[in-house]
């Protein structure tokens, strides 16, 4: 079965410090990977995606993620976080021809001033 594991349910980080949010996925021949962000009481916004090609993917708001096939990981990183990055972050996967997007359980990122 397709699955996505986000190992940390909550991550507190000091402002301007770097952050990494971890995501592991169940392997497949052709897998698409996504990170979405949900700000408090708002909808889901696409941060970045990996469909194919370069394993380092850059997204909005200074975030990036690296597709690692051997470790089946797609960790999200930001070198310096801001208060405005406080949100819930969801990793998700799908496969070619499969309409279903499978989500991880989310990681709540809290920025400490």
């Amino acid at each position, binding site marked *: 079965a397709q699955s996505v594991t986000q190992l940390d349910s909550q991550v507190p980080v000091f402002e301007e410090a770097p952050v990494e949010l971890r995501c592991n996925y169940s392997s497949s021949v052709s897998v698409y990977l996504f990170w979405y962000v949900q700000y408090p009481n*708002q909808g889901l916004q*696409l941060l970045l995606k990996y469909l194919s090609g370069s394993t380092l993917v850059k997204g909005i708001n200074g975030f990036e993620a690296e597709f690692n096939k051997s470790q089946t990981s797609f960790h999200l990183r930001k070198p310096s976080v801001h208060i405005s990055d406080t949100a819930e972050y969801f990793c998700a996967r799908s496969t070619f021809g499969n*309409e*279903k*997007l499978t989500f991880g*359980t989310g990681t709540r990122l809290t920025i400490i001033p």
Partner: protein
Amino acid sequence: DTAVSQTPKYLVTQMGNDKSIKCEQNLGHDTMYWYKQDSKKFLKIMFSYNNKELIINETVPNRFSPKSPDKAHLNLHINSLELGDSAVYFCASSQYTGNTIYFGEGSWLTVV
């Protein structure tokens, strides 16, 4: 211009009532979805439509009935609402299957 828009954003209703949530996308996408986010923030697909045809129904109770009058609209009707239906319902769309899915702002449903 909102790409995927859904109404209402907030809905409070009593148990046993029937309610609908409407969704429209102006992205020209062929595929639309309904996802449910529970109180623990877990997101799970409910339905998927491609060109007005149902292609995914994830063991959702019969009280939930999606309707797609055209490929730009996917409405969700819920009969006999129960307390457990309280959740955030997200509409979404994609250009074709397996590609990037864009979400609406969500509809916060509270059943009392």
